[in-house]
């Protein structure tokens, strides 16, 4: 057990040589295993595709007749050559020329970077792919009598246990190849930042007028309310009420508002007052009479809010 001050997360901060800090989400062993399997599938598909082209176009037969080799020997030689080329250069060439990505990594939004956040170079790409074989260790013989009889020996299986355990000792989930070559694998974050949520319900804007003018929403409260309002459209009406209740009940008491005021609407009103009160929800100027002049009996806080019900949608 360890006592942690920062929450456990796969996000790290990297400061570049230019002294610019980036937050990266690190790609862990399971995501990388999925990318590896995709790349393996692509390599196999290329291997089979090339083989079919050679056979179907008659090139294989032509080459065999020229070189005077038997079908089995020649096929095995071609297979081994192509397999060698794909296995050794696929990863390193793609990562060099695709800026740290292979097709599998691209599909899973992974990218290899230097540990300081800079793009990797060809040497790093080659080195980390070369050391991939170390991550497949240990290899174990398959304990099957039938296979032994078939092949005369036990087939060997890579177990990837080194690739699973070594990254655990690094904050950046670096495998052996990454540690040696000074690289790391990050997840490209393509999420969109939330804009300020719109408050389309006019009643929220009306209700905002009943919040005392001298009431200043603190930093943590404004953050909590913003979190709620930005996500509330995904919740059912009952769930909105359940969540908003915790903050709305003491607020209603503090602002001296009727107890049956919609909790959801109240938080929307506070949000409106905090973030949007200088503009209307549709980003046009506030020319509405009611919004300009305020509620007719604002000084007494007696607006009937009992009929307020939260709308579905934001």
């Amino acid at each position: 057990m360890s006592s942690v001050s920062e929450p456990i997360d796969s996000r790290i901060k990297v400061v570049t040589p230019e002294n610019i800090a980036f937050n990266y989400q690190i790609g862990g062993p399971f995501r990388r295993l999925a990318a590896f399997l995709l790349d393996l599938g692509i390599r196999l598909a290329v291997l089979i595709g090339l083989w079919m082209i050679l056979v179907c176009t008659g090139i294989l037969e032509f080459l065999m007749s020229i070189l005077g080799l038997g079908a089995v020997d020649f096929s095995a030689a071609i297979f081994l050559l192509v397999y060698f080329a794909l296995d050794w250069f696929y990863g390193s060439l793609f990562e060099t020329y695709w800026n740290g990505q292979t097709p599998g990594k691209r599909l899973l939004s992974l990218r290899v970077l230097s540990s300081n956040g800079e793009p990797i170079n060809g040497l790093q790409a080659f080195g980390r792919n070369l050391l991939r074989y170390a991550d497949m260790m240990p290899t174990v013989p398959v304990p099957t009598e039938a296979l032994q009889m078939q092949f005369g020996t036990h087939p060997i299986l890579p177990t990837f246990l080194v690739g699973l355990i070594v990254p655990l000792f690094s904050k950046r989930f670096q495998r052996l190849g990454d540690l040696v070559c000074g690289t790391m694998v990050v997840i490209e974050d393509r999420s969109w930042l939330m804009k300020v949520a719109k408050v389309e319900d006019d009643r929220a804007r009306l209700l905002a007028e009943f919040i005392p003018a001298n009431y200043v929403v603190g930093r943590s409260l404004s953050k909590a309310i913003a979190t709620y309002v930005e996500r509330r459209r995904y919740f059912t009406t009952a769930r909105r009420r359940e969540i908003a209740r915790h903050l709305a009940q003491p607020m209603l008491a503090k602002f001296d508002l009727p107890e049956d005021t919609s909790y959801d609407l109240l938080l929307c009103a506070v949000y409106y007052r905090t973030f949007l009160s200088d503009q209307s929800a549709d980003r046009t100027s506030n020319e509405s009479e009611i919004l300009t002049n305020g509620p007719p009996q604002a000084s007494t806080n007696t607006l009937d809010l009992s009929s307020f019900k939260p709308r579905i949608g934001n």
Partner: protein
Amino acid sequence: MQLDKTQIAIRERGLLEIYDLALLVTKCYWKRILLSLAIFGIPVSLLNFFLLYSLQIEVGVWDVSAQFFTLTVVLIYLEAPLVTVPLTMFLGDALFHDKPDWRRAFLGFWPLTPRVFWSILMLRGVLPGIALVYFSMFEDGILAVVFLVLLCLYAVVLRVVRPYISEIVLLERNPLRSKNKSVITIGRRSSALHGPNFGDMVVRGMASSVSILIVLAIVLNIWAARGYLFGAWGIDLWYLNLLLPLGLWLVVAFMSVVRFLSYLDLRIRREGWEVELVVRAEANRWKGVLS
């Protein structure tokens, strides 16, 4: 305890990210995870030892060893929900506290025992599974074997479509049943949480088959390590009684951490749990200011 200061970063995550995060959580709390696993794991392993005792005399025979191996895997698979009860409670406590505490984690466990007995031991097939393995040891135990196979199929389906029963029972602490329809019982909460996410549950259930690969990697490595180091390539009683169950329980522990994190993720996506934590934490501060 501050609700918005969790020890594990709370946000929506993808499936693969959950597995990677589970590695970090396991690394951070590995000692306590092993301890919480041992609470029920050791007694249950002893029980398994006695259940399969009659097979041990003939373990050198290939068929008997295979039967021993299979029954060990089946027993551990069926017993996993029971053995991971302390682990789930520990993780629930560790989520909100900088220094997890056993006493605090198990506070209020006693009133939960009837719910644990019914929802976990019975409905999840733990006790029926143990009973069926016991009866399958008899010479005319073929019927018990048939029912054991059916029970395993039932357990697989249940764990795919209702994976978070343990978390609901142990962490949410909803009642088992209630005549009042407005009270959220275990069944109602389970339906509300699992029902709308059926497709997602199936995908996650299929993804959990990665545990088979991890089991294979660990079990094969233990076997090969003994072979390389001591030349013991056979499958003997040490391997079947100690090393194999140990490897399996380690994977059970890891998958329980994955399940716990998946449960949090589902609550975040389905119920906006992270929003509720932030709002409740702010409400607590407000109450402090007002009082």
